């Protein structure tokens, strides 16, 4: 079976500065998730370069990439992606296990963050015993566990009802505001995009600037 080469992204150039809150918008198949995966070191461009903290990710050895993913980046997925065999606390502790954080510290930190996302009483529940919103909050807590510089969220509210979705976005915004973390959120929901400070619109693998420029323009005027 031959493979048909599909260019998910073409001639795209995007710069995200530290501390920004960027929403990447676009319809299904526009390439927004591919863009996000590259920012998150989960995927690599066949041509072109992705620089993270000034380093070309395609040239980084695997050990450094995992270090980046674990320490610099935090991920929130649409499908939550919790490990089903581990309870909420263990799921939040897992990124710290990979960073070799000692057990006691790990536990305290994880409990602390789970408290912040409002799950204090549910730390010992398995993912299957939690609601969708609760699971995503566990995933949020996990993304923040190693105190990352950038948090990346791929349709974080895509599987949630609007009320729960709003709660998740508010939690994310809260982290952004209080801790000054860089946020990159992929969404096709304009309501969610409103939480962002910058909006990048993407279509057929290319940035179609209008909306974004307008917003940028708006922000510039605001300053």
């Amino acid at each position, binding site marked *: 079976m031959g493979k048909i080469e599909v260019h998910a992204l073409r001639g795209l150039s995007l710069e995200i500065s530290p501390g920004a809150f960027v929403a990447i918008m676009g319809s299904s198949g526009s390439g927004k998730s591919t863009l996000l995966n590259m920012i998150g070191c989960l995927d690599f461009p066949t041509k072109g370069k992705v620089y993270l903290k000034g380093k070309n990710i395609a040239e980084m050895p695997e050990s450094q990439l995992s270090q980046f993913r674990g320490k610099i980046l935090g991920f929130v997925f649409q499908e939550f*992606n919790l490990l089903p065999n581990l309870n909420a606390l263990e799921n939040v502790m897992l*990124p710290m296990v990979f960073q070799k954080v000692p057990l006691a510290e790990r536990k305290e930190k994880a409990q602390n963050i789970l408290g912040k996302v409002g799950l204090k009483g549910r730390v010992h529940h398995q993912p299957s015993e939690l609601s969708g919103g609760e699971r995503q909050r566990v995933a949020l807590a996990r993304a923040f566990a190693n105190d990352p510089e950038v948090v990346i969220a791929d349709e974080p509210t895509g599987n949630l009802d609007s009320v729960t979705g709003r709660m998740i976005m508010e939690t994310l915004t809260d982290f952004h505001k209080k801790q000054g973390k860089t946020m990159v959120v992929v969404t096709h929901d304009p309501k969610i995009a409103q939480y962002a400070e910058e909006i990048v619109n993407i279509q057929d693998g290319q940035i179609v600037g209008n909306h974004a420029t307008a917003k940028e323009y708006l922000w510039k005027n605001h300053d």
Partner: protein
Amino acid sequence: MTDLKEYFNIALRNIRTRLLRSWLTILGIIIGVFLIISLLSLSEGLKMTVDQQLQALGGEMVMIVPGEDFISSMMFGGTKLQAEDIEAIQKADGVDTVISYSYIGTIARYEGESKQIAIAGLGPWREALEIFEVFQGWSLREGRWPSKGNQVLIGQQVANKIFAEEVEIGSEIIIKGRKFETTGILNSLGSQQDDSMVYMDIDVYQDVTGEKRGTAAYAMAKLVDGADENEVAESIEESLKKTRKRRLGADEADFSVITSEKMGELAGNILGIIQIVIIGFASIAIVVGGIGITNSMFTSVRERTREIGVMKAIGATNSAILSIFLIEAGIIGILGGVGGLILGSALAKGIDYYAQMNPSFYFTATVAPWMIVFALLFSFSVGCLAGFFPARQAAKLKPVDALRRYE
């Protein structure tokens, strides 16, 4: 170390969530290791039994068997030692007494019942009994040593098993139309064959069977005190060769002089072959078990590709993922090893127990310490090896590919 402990916990959790499948895989290993352990313990038991019998031969005796090939003449008989040969043995340096020994299968009647047994003739009778008592460990369970020509000794099997009625001391047993009186019953001699014999004076034996007087199926030479068995064996060989050359004009040595040392070597060779065959079979069992683990690990990796993607996305290194899966496979391997070991040892103990309860069952099984170490190491490494390839495959995936699977 702390992360290894954590990986161990995760691996254990993974095994527990797929409990049935994990147990089935473990069962595969259990059967493999059980086979290995039981086969090896049986072969070890066989070795011990043979060693014990060899020890009964003792260092003070040398055996002389006609024929070029010791094994075939022991099994099929055929050529006999002639009277001149016996004389030649007697003349050799360091030989004290020569015992002639012949045997043949025949029908015996007891209480109107005819059964297949074997009769053996020993001579000279009195010396033979004395030597066998001291050096071969013959002892009477009942009765007394026979003294007259028509008196016989019977083995334990003849007394208890062969005839429907137990053969009693003083009773009459008919062999080839001649009446014999049972005067003694021997304790077990350690082999089924020896215990199924009726022993008599070789002269009487030759009368009954029509064997040429003075010949023997084989001979045993008792050495004079302090003689070296290898030197005596050599001198017997010399002496025999000389007579044979005179008699037949042939130069080849168509007889074997066997010392206990040589016998040990010989038995060792045979046992070695048996053991190789056994290990071959056992290896097949283990390979099958190993394929089971590999299969299970591959399935497990495939269905958890997404989890692997998640773990990589939150900072797991390739080696962390590899460790988790290797530990998982190793645990399965070790559990299978321990299970197989317990079952295998139980079987060996069972056989051992049965053999002690039934002295006529000449078989024991022994679990040697090296087998335990071997089984555990083996199952663990099979587990790790079987887990290694799927785990490495999983660890090498690009996170985005792993996450995309089964979406």
